[in-house]
């Protein structure tokens, strides 16, 4: 008899008061044997973390040397002193890093939960997760960590149940007086980072499946991007944040009422990206650093906010400009009255008349009508104002400056606003503000400290208005997952090293210098035929980086996951497709089992896949969590200098030879290896330095000689171009003469002999002695004992 199991109850007639409750029935076909760590708890992957932390020693740069989280304090912890609870400074910093990662991962998890909850209500639990014919591994992070193949949106609920439970458990560990070792807190941060990628994946595959976004399409549409792309003759709805639901409803309302050509829908931050995935006619204004620019310009007729990266003064700023605000999220309700259940006619009239500065509408399905009607009415009533301020006002503002430089000291970039002000005041020349504008993140801290109350941001922007308006370009709409067929094509060349690396430009817009530097970094790697993937704010800013003909990188390079391709996966939550791609390389090319098999896959990635993240302007806690998740998976990241304020990095020491070893499954020996990569998270100060570090960190122990030769060629060329010399450590990565760049082979052999004492057979141009290890084509490295035992059949005596 085949029993059809369903959720519900079974009452046994013969046994009084006995009811068997059947909860969730998980129907899993045997697609893959379960690995050792499905649904890992906090300590289940600690052994893997310890491997990483042994090599990549945590580095702490305290922002404060005190702790004030409990009432025994505040405690002064300088020079690694212990506080009243016994915690020392290092461990306290590690604890704060965990907290930052928890904030980041919780943001994505709450976002995912909101989406899945909404989609289950709208489409039902059985709505299939169909990411197109070319994406069979639909959820690599979920498979790897949770151990299921989700088939429907309903399946994602239990994945989120697990993530939420784990996040709460980790949060609990931050209570006063618990962990004694910073390494244990680091293991928790890595755990949270891993969970974050699972939550992001849930969010993105749910919205791709339900809203019919591009499904791994390399030719996803190009969308207009930049401050100057808005048609100012139309009412403008500006949507800010990360959760697409209200924006989608606005687009639907416009279409249902035939208004799609009458109203401009534009976005800031990740909502912008996800709106263009839903409707490519929508426009991207820019990143978070464009929020104050956009509001102060007075261009929007209504502002709709959802969640995450939105300024906390949005309502105040909009109110000054007479722009009504519609808040839609529990995370940012802005002190506004909840009018979700009121008559839309009354709400619209209140907002248009100015009786209400803003409203909270919690139901995304009600936002569309109100936002569109308000935008149209406001545009009818308001006159045209000059953006930011008039010319006379500009001159008057500049005259107030006394040159006290408080603005400079409060500026996150220490921009010399005082010099620009004095130059304009004395000479009537406002050009120095144009030099400041591309670096200014428009945070407004300068205005908070100016004793004369100068509207400094407005002065900078008004002086740079032509520059701002000319900021137009095209981004490719986020394509979502990488196709399995693409992985099949590039898996081997990536692992062999003949595609020199995958550069993942992800994160926020808090760049150390002008935005253009990001484009310059990325173009260097596209020209060298690395694979470049991008997401979020970096993806938008790349759309504004144009050549003399006005073409952006998206128009010059294909959108395929292949050498020389530029792939925009989508918004923040689409970062999971980047981690997903490296996981899929292990699964598809190397046929490694994914299911509940985290350590083996991360170990494979660390030793073989030359992928490196670039977070040139990371500012948010989400970026901390995303990067930490990549780190646990064996993917290093280069970050911009602001990211040192996250307090922690993972930096190995190449000179500690005892730390650089692997088990070789082929020779069945523990052998020394080159320090590749030698850091999991490290900061670069300038674009020149970042470029060299990215090439350097693509080197992996398992590179073939041809792959190593290609990687070393790029590394050496870039070092010579930007640092003016050979890199200090190139010799560490040489195993055989075949590793050396062909054009430089003789010269480099001579240096190896003269400066490093290597023995060279000059007749045959062969290295006889010197390298850390000999090259072996069958080299099969692992750091994990159970992986070694699995593939050799031999036990390691521990």
């Amino acid at each position, binding site marked *: 008899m085949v029993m059809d199991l369903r959720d519900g109850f079974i009452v046994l007639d013969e046994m009084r008061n006995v009811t068997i409750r059947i909860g969730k029935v998980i129907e899993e076909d045997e697609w893959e044997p379960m690995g050792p760590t499905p649904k890992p708890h906090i300590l289940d992957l600690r052994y893997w973390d310890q491997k990483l932390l042994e090599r990549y*020693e945590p*580095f*702490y*740069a*305290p*922002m*404060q*040397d*005190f702790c004030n989280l409990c009432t025994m304090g*505040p405690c*002064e912890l*300088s*020079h*690694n002193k212990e506080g009243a609870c016994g915690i020392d*400074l*290092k461990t306290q910093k590690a604890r704060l890093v965990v907290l930052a990662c928890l904030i980041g991962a919780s943001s994505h998890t709450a976002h995912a939960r909101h989406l899945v909850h909404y989609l289950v209500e709208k489409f039902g639990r059985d709505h299939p997760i169909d990411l197109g014919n070319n994406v069979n591994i639909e959820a690599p992070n979920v498979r790897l960590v949770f151990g299921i193949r989700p088939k429907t949106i309903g399946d994602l609920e239990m994945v989120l149940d697990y993530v939420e439970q784990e996040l709460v458990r980790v949060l609990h560990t931050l209570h006063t007086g618990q962990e004694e070792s910073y390494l244990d807190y680091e293991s928790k941060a890595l755990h949270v980072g891993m969970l974050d990628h699972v939550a992001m994946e849930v969010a993105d595959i749910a919205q791709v499946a339900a809203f019919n976004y591009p499904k791994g399409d390399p030719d996803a549409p190009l969308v207009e991007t930049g401050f100057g792309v808005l048609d100012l003759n139309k009412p403008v709805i500006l949507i800010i944040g990360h959760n697409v639901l209200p924006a989608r409803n606005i687009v639907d309302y416009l279409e249902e009422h035939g208004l799609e050509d009458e109203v401009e829908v534009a976005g800031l931050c990740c909502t912008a990206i996800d709106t263009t995935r839903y409707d490519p006619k929508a426009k991207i204004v820019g990143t978070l650093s464009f929020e104050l620019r956009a509001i102060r310009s007075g261009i929007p007729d209504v502002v709709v906010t959802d969640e995450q990266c939105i300024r906390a003064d949005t309502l105040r700023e909009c109110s000054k400009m007479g722009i009504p605000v519609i808040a839609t999220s529990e995370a940012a309700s802005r002190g506004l009255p909840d009018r979700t259940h009121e008559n839309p006619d009354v709400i619209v009239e209140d907002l248009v008349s100015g009786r209400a500065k803003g409203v909270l509408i919690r139901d995304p399905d009600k936002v569309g009508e109100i936002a569109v009607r308000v935008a149209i009415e406001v545009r009818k009533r308001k006159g045209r104002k000059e953006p930011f301020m008039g010319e006379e006002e500009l001159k008057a503002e500049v005259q107030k400056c006394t040159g006290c430089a408080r603005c400079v*000291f*409060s500026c*996150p*970039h*220490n921009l010399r606003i005082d010099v620009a002000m004095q130059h304009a005041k004395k000479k009537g020349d406002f050009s120095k503000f144009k030099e400041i504008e591309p670096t200014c993140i428009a945070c407004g801290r300068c205005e908070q400290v100016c004793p004369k109350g100068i509207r400094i941001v407005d002065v900078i922007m008004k002086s740079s208005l032509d520059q701002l308006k000319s900021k137009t370009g095209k981004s490719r709409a986020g394509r979502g997952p990488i196709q399995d067929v693409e992985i099949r094509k590039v898996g081997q060349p990536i692992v062999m090293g003949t595609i020199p690396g995958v550069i993942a430009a992800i994160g926020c817009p808090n760049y*150390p*210098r002008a935005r253009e530097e990001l484009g310059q970094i990325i173009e260097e790697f596209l020209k060298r035929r690395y694979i470049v993937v991008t997401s979020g704010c970096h993806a938008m800013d790349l759309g504004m980086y144009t050549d003399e003909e006005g073409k952006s990188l998206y128009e010059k390079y294909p959108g395929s996951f292949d050498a020389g391709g530029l792939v925009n996966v989508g918004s923040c939550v689409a970062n999971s497709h980047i981690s997903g791609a490296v996981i899929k390389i292990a699964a598809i090319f190397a046929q490694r089992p994914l299911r509940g098999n985290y350590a083996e896959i991360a170990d494979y990635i660390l030793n073989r896949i030359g992928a490196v993240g670039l977070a040139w302007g990371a500012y948010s806690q989400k970026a901390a969590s995303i990067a930490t998740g990549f780190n646990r998976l064996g993917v290093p990241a280069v970050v911009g*200098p*602001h990211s*040192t*304020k996250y*307090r922690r*990095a993972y*930096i190995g*020491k190449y*000179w500690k030879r005892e730390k650089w070893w692997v088990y070789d499954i082929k020779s069945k020996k523990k052998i020394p290896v080159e320090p590749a990569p030698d*850091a999991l998270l*490290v*900061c*670069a*100060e*300038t674009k*020149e*330095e970042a470029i*060299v*570090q990215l090439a*350097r960190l693509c080197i992996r122990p398992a590179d073939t000689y041809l792959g190593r030769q290609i990687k070393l060629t790029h590394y050496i060329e870039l*070092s010579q171009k*930007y*640092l*003016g*010399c050979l*890199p*200090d*450590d190139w010799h560490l990565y040489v195993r055989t003469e075949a590793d050396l760049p062909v054009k430089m082979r003789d010269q480099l052999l001579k240096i190896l002999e003269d400066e490093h004492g290597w023995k060279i057979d000059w007749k045959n141009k062969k290295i006889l002695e010197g390298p850390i290890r000999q090259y072996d084509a069958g080299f099969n490295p692992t750091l994990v004992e159970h992986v070694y035992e699995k593939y050799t059949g031999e036990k390691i005596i521990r």
Partner: protein
Amino acid sequence: MSLDKAFEKVTRIFNPADIQASKCASIIKPKVVATMIKKSKHPVLITGGKLLEDEKLVDFVVKLHEKTGIDVIATGGSSRPLIERGIKPIATVFTLHYITQYLIDLNWKGFDGKGNYDLAVFIGFTTPYYLSRMLSALKHFSRVNTISICEYYQPHAKFSFPNLNEDLYYEALNMILEV
């Protein structure tokens, strides 16, 4: 304002919010910087990316190296202009982040194999907040003496120049060379 007065004036932290409970850097005069380099057993000068855009800083580093023989660790791409001027930095590819991590390790032998450095002098960083974080790490977790001779006062160094305007700053650098 004269240079002497600038060094006596109470100075501001480059970011008023970068506050620590423990001691802030002592203001150091140019002559004392020169003396400390001279008296140090194993000093090193660490340069940053600002040298890519400021020829005067490159001049200063070249002259200081020639005059005192202090080794130069070039970070942020600052090696290129130095090499063009005939200086050979002892390290070029490691970022300030790496260098700080190494300096913290008591077992590091330095790039010359002579042991960890007892004095690290910092100059030419485009981003004071980055240097600030590294100095904070060195303050709490290392025994290295640190001097910042950048244009902004760096509270987490052991010794630092005060905030100086452009003219006074170059004047102060020249005074180091004159000793």
